[in-house]
């Protein structure tokens, strides 16, 4: 669960929405008040200390199906199945302009 974190995108599965190298701000705070909804871009904990960024495409009760915007190049729920709310580390609340370096 993240209060506010900055992430840099690695990979192409969220193109054209998010480009490789783009910075985003992620926070769990919105989900303290409302449930995740379809079309939300979310950060999910895939493995220990490994985060994926995906979009919620389907909701079934407390289960969420996530996918990449770039369907041909995305490792997502089509492969690892439905996820639970506890797997969601936060919502993308802001994206920086593509390829702008804040480092």
């Amino acid at each position, binding site marked *: 669960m993240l209060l*506010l*974190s*900055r*992430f*840099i*995108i*690695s*990979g*192409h*599965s*969220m193109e054209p929405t*998010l480009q*490789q190298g783009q*910075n*985003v*701000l*992620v926070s769990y705070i919105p989900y303290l008040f409302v449930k995740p909804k379809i079309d939300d871009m979310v*950060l999910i904990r*895939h493995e220990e200390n*490994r*985060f*994926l*960024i*995906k979009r919620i495409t389907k909701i079934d009760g407390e289960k969420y199906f996530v996918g*990449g915007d770039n369907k*041909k*190049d*995305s*490792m997502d729920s089509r*492969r690892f199945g439905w996820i639970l709310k506890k797997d969601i580390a936060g919502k993308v609340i*802001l994206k*920086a302009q593509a390829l702008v370096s*804040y*480092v």
Partner: protein
Amino acid sequence: MIRQKLLTVIFKILPTNVAYAHCDIPCGIYDPHLAQMAAHTVIRMTSLINDLKASSSEPLFDERKKIISQISRLTKVKDEHAELVKHEVRILWGDYFKEEHLKQYPELNDLVFRTMKLASKARQEVNIEAANELLDTVQEIAQIFWKTKNIKSAKIKSPYPSGATIVVPK
């Protein structure tokens, strides 16, 4: 302006983490087919531009408009697909090919380098030789790709109007 500055400060203050948006976890799904199709498109667009003819050396304004419109559309697609070739080859080179592949196929680095340069040339010019050569280098990469997977490949005549060949797994 103030908002932008504020965001810049926030982005600078916060430490960076990496969010993976990729299938290279690894999911192992790679294929040189898309790069080849894009290279075929570059050939086709280049041929179509070369085939454009005017009815005279001084065509009427309406005919000029039509030709300019056609050239614009064909050039746009040619450019997009030359860039797509680069994009697809970058994925193979950056994500799929590993050091042991480079040791086994030392020509790979040069092939990728030439592919990038040829794709740029095919974009900048209306050059059928460059477009054909681009497909050749992409196909050489495709052949190496299938070899690294211990899968036999064959170069067969493609069903596309470019009339060129395509490398497919057997």
